[in-house]
């Protein structure tokens, strides 16, 4: 979808949908929001809806950073300590590697 051809109200409503959708544990929507609307929010010359779009993009970026931090921490801990956790580690795993602890 080419944002050039949309009127400004629809751009705003699209940005808002992606922003609200990301709260349903969908950080990827926030990533898309940031990447897609970055040029609209910060590079283009100002228009009425741009302020709203700017806030949505900023908040999406914030949520995205939070998710990335949490996931990176959890993944690091799990990959490092799964073998030591024994039973708990096995019950938390979807796929257990064969032949290594």
């Amino acid at each position: 979808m080419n944002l050039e051809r949309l009127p400004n109200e629809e751009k705003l409503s699209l940005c808002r949908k992606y922003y609200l959708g990301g709260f349903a544990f969908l950080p990827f929507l926030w990533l898309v929001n940031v990447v897609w609307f970055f040029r609209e929010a910060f590079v283009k010359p100002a228009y009425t809806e741009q302020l709203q779009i700017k806030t949505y993009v900023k908040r999406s970026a914030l949520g995205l950073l939070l998710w990335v931090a949490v996931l990176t921490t959890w993944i690091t801990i799990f990959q490092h300590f799964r073998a030591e956790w024994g039973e708990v580690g096995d019950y938390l795993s979807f796929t257990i590697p064969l032949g290594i602890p």
Partner: protein
Amino acid sequence: MSNCSCYSAFLSFAGVSCNSVEKKIYVHLNYTVSCVRLLNATHQIGCQSSLSGNVGVLHVLESEENLDWVLHSGPNPPYMVILESPLFTRSVMMKLKNGSGRVAGVAVVAPNTNPAEGFSPHTTCPNENTGVYSETYEPTMANCNMTVWNPLGNGLSYEEFDFPIFSLKDDNDTQVIRQCYLDHNRAGNGSTPQYPLCAMQLYSHMSAVTDTATCMRRNAINFSLNPEMVCDPLGDQNVWASTRPLNNTAKGHKMWESVVIAAARLDSRSFFFDIAPGAQSGVSGFVTLLAAAHALRNATQEAQPNRTILYTFFQGETFDYIGSSRMVYDMENKQFVVDLDNVHSVLEIGQVGLRADSKLWLHTDPVSRRNESVNKEVEDLIGNLRSAATGLNVTVDVPGFSQPLPPSSFQRFLRARPIPGVVLEDHQSAYTNKFYESMYDNAENLNVSYPPNLTPEEQLEYITDTARVATMVARALYRQAGGEESQLSSIKADPQIVTKMLYSFLVRSNNSWFQQLGNVISFLTGFVCVVHHDFCCLQLVLNRNCTIRIFACSTHFPPPCDSSHLVPQMYNYMWVQGAAPPNSTEREGYCVRSTARLSKALSPAFDLEQYTSKNFSTWTESRWKFIKGRIFLVASHELEMLTLGVGVGVLLSSLLVTYIISSKADILFSSGREPTNATY
């Protein structure tokens, strides 16, 4: 991969043969026998390779000093070490184990004759934690404090290696490997060998890890995306038979039934998977007992003794007494035809194949003999054995000093209650078997040899043993069961039967005698089935693990088995393939009735789900996807990187050229002078 399979049919019409690139690079190993991973409650033992196989540059080890090349000075690690059998010792293997990444794997060349000095990869004190001697039962005799039973044991089977170890036969394929090493890898006159070098890749990736509790837990998880079984408990089936039919549906104590247990062990092991000839450690014992059962078949029918003789053949005794612990557990929990109160005494036949001076030793447990009544029964049994040995050119004796029992299934019975019993062995103190639980414990170890130029059928019939021990055991059992003296002289074991059994179990099982029973697939041990034969005594039943049946007596039925007067709770009925009569090719099968049955030989730890149990065996064997190996030539790392770099460079430059051309396309591809307004 074969990249001309599509063309092969077409080309073959043109008379051109198709050559696959893979076949030009790799030479696959035909005979792949490797060591596998086994787990118990606390440890994992055996070998492991990486998932994509371990690759290493071949090196044929010349001496123990040459290990320095592999471990320190060789310029092209990791190395795949080829060991000739004199170098397959504990010190060499321990140094390789600590090689820290420079050792990719080991291949041991198995010789065609046994080494002279003996080799036993088992521990010096077999089954020390699951026998009867422990901290609570005579600690002075526990852990082989008094007698070291297997002094030659180097414990290699119970070490853990993180590289694959394969066994190669000493034949043409191995000669190809040695030649490849000599052509490419040999460092001559102090110069380093140049690439390309000969390398080998071994795959033996094992799925299970850590210990039995972990792998049984991972077996049971069905929450994961791809549930997979990673290990299996060791176990198979015991075989038992009785001289009088016992009602198999009524389990538990049988009133007025007094039973003499005649026990033997079926299985053995070696360092490598599925090679376990066990000639002296297993076969000698159970063949003797089978021959004794065969010798008693008439006497126990016509002049029945007071007590019933229960012949039991235990499976899995190598791994902490799997079979006997299960049978004792079943007896204690009323899951077996008799229970421990019915057991009068036990006679176990241990390793009896290497009799120096035809002397056999009767081992007893001194701790239980401190009780007067038990001592009297043991003395009676010893007396029966001595008197049965007279006139047979076999001498039996007691060791003469207070010594614990050797590792034997009888120890598990003693753990339950003090039963009088004797274990018959051919060694007074330490084992005379120099190859206990190794791949060399074969026919050569038992001195079973045949003159050259005999066909397999002639070898089957060639008498290699005189069956005196079996006769002695049969007579002693008959006396112990309360039979009459007058019948003793008619009890004789048949050397023909003994020799056929030895041939079938030690040399070649696919012979005419076994084929009369059924389809002979494969045997020759491990903790796998053993085949018994003789219409009166043995039957092969094939299922996934090939099990044995022993018939203590049999009666023919006309086929088809007329089911009206069958009594399945007392007898077991089976179809036997039979032999073809002389003038036809159709085999005449028939039904056989016997009292032989199978009983489950799975450690109680798995039924009770006590995977860390100290009382029962907790051995499991890992699963694996495939075991294979191949050899090929490898190039140097620099050449590989150069090839990759050139490829990437070609890719980038072609992208660049394409971009340049496409951006200047209108200049480069002008199609002549076009008139701007073409009007005619």
